[in-house]
């Protein structure tokens, strides 16, 4: 087991074996001692050791932990398994295709039918322009036109000029 701990600390133990090893560390005091000693050695070699009183601190923290209410929280969200991206791409492509089909079909029907009936109505009973001509010079209306110049009466009238000539 010590060899596995050494290998795991070096990031060289495969994930399944590492999970099993970490689980076994819970109740194996000898393995926990090895875990501690190997980390102390690593810290010493890197110059992190030499800090006195560490074991005493460790025991204090453990004692304080024992007094703490046990944390019971759902595990942190995990990264999606490798196969999930493929599913996500497929789902996104399907959704995009469906949206595109609906968007392509819908404008071809209702708006076109509406335009056709409206054109028939205009030809049958040309209505007078419903333009607020009397208000065109109204400062209040003018102010609004300044905000939205695209709907100025003059512009709209131009659009209907052919009908008026006819």
């Amino acid at each position, binding site marked *: 087991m*010590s060899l596995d701990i050494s290998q795991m600390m070096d990031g060289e133990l495969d*994930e399944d074996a*590492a999970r099993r090893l970490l689980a076994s560390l819970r109740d194996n005091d000898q393995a926990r001692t090895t875990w501690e000693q190997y980390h102390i050695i690593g810290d010493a*070699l890197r110059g992190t050791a030499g800090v006195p009183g*560490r074991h005493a601190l460790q025991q204090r923290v453990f004692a304080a932990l*024992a007094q703490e209410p046990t*944390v019971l929280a759902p595990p942190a*969200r995990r990264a999606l398994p490798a196969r999930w991206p493929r599913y996500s791409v497929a789902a996104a492509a399907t959704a995009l295709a469906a949206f595109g089909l609906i968007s392509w079909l819908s404008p071809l029907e209702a708006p076109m039918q509406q335009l056709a009936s409206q054109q028939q109505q205009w030809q049958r009973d040309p209505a007078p322009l419903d333009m607020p001509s009397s208000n065109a010079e109204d400062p209040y209306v003018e102010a609004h036109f300044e905000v939205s110049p695209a709907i100025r009466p003059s512009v709209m009238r131009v659009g209907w000029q052919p009908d008026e000539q006819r």
Partner: protein
Amino acid sequence: MQGSTGILTGFDACFQSVQPSPRLPHTAQNAATATGRGLSNTAPVNSIQGNLGGMTDREIDRQLVERAQRGDKRAFELLVIKYQRKLARLLSRLIRDPAEIDDVSQEAFIKAYRALPSFRGDSAFYTWLYRIAINTAKNYLVSTGRRTTSTSELEGEDGENFEENELLGDWNTPEAELMSKEVMQTVNASMDALPEELRTAITLREIEGLSYEDIAGIMNCPIGTVRSRIFRAREAIAERLRPQLGTSKDRRW
């Protein structure tokens, strides 16, 4: 030389004149001197190492955190064992008194435990713990009417680089210095006693942070041999340290 460890088998015939310096440096500080590099280049990098298929250091921490989140306090204890020295060393930059460092370290670990439900693994566990420890230390200093050090003086971008800029010797009591020397002397003596191939392997791993594959390439031997050498080096050093580590409650670290 083999007899010094008592566990050597002499099968390392594949070791072929790696030719490190006659006596490879043991500690990071010595390594920096010997290689002409700053300490920042000799930082532990096992947090980012990991062979293909191997569980990375970060993932190990994450596994332990998840176990703790499910109610396994013993898993959190393993994180305390792993990071207490690093954390105390960080705090020693803010607080000089070792007793106060212990108090703040304990408080930081307990705060981290209470905050475990909020840990999502977006950052490394130590980075997260580092932030908690810094805030705990600053609050402590404010509560005692002392000036706090700017965090920027302590950290790199993610707090991971702090240790790289550290030098040994922040523990300023005579007793602490003596203990530090004892520990380092034991480790250095253990390294001196190792066969060169073991010393090289563990140095390349622990100080240089190389993967087994890279070490195998450098030492021109199979990965399995690298694994064995590093393990035997650790065991040999641990054997010498055990009398100091002991099991008594008054042991020093």
